[in-house]
């Protein structure tokens, strides 16, 4: 089981490297979707079926939107990265973040032994013990999502609608279309 997880993570890392380093933009988009589906399979291994179903829809939507964004962009590829000084600063920053992450590893619980096995008064324990009694939901994730932390879900819906409104406002050409003008369906001239 754990070996399968490791293999899956290696597959995701390879797909991520391909997605970032390949010249073909369509191959990059498909590779990033491969990373997403690897994450979905990993969620199933982590005993999280609720979390695994939602990103299937999300991945397909992201694939469609990304292909829409690159549909009429020619096959022109840019070789090379940003300028040299910027690269140096970037590498230094990456190294600093990496060191900070390595230090943080010491405080993490070992894989397979979450905090709820050690902390007696963790909120998750209460949710698991009383979830069915208090909310009537057999699925504890749903109980947390829609009962214990329902305000989070309300905020999530707000953020989603705000981002949709923002995307429409950014993509739209004119504030108000005159009836005599042709249909605005093309975003590229």
């Amino acid at each position, binding site marked *: 089981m754990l070996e399968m*997880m490791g293999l899956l*993570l*290696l597959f*995701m890392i390879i797909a*991520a490297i391909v*997605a*970032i380093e390949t010249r073909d*933009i369509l191959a*990059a*988009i498909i590779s*990033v979707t491969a*990373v*997403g589906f690897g994450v979905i399979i*990993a969620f199933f291994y*982590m*005993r*999280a079926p*609720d*979390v695994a179903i*939602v990103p299937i829809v999300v991945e397909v939507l*992201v694939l469609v*939107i*990304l292909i829409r*964004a*690159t549909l009429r962009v020619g096959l022109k*590829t*840019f070789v090379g*990265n*940003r300028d040299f000084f910027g690269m140096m600063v*970037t590498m230094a920053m*990456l190294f600093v*973040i990496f060191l900070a*992450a390595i230090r943080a590893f010491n405080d993490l619980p070992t*894989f*397979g*032994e*979450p*905090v*709820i096995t050690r902390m007696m008064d963790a909120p*998750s324990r209460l*949710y*698991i*013990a009383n*979830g069915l009694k208090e909310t009537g939901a*057999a*699925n*504890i*994730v749903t109980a947390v*999502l829609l009962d214990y*932390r329902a305000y*989070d*879900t309300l905020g*999530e819906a707000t953020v989603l609608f705000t*981002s*949709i409104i*923002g995307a*429409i406002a*950014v*993509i739209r050409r004119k504030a108000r279309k005159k009836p005599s003008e042709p249909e605005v369906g093309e*975003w590229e001239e």
Partner: protein
Amino acid sequence: MHYALCLMLFMIGLYGVMVKRNLIKIIISLIIMESAVNLFLVMIGYRKDGIAPIMTKGMEAGTFAARAVDPVPQALVLTAIVIGLGVTAMTIAIAMRLYERYGTYDIKEMRKLKG
């Protein structure tokens, strides 16, 4: 070990965001970082030989409490995934608008054109 691989996935995404010139590649790197963070949060809640936090018929409360994985990270990751979709849609909308304005996805060219 698994956390280290997850960190590596995140670092690959961060490298792409910082180094790449193509706007679409930067967005792809952002999506990879998002996936890595979501996976890490679910991994923190995993319990060895655990079961999904769903009560089934005929299951005793004691064994359920002793074996179920942590439900709170799963619920919060569910929220984060949907918000990630919103963020991605918004960034791609801005990128498409920039392409319309400058005729390229290359951020170096954009800098040259604007001064």
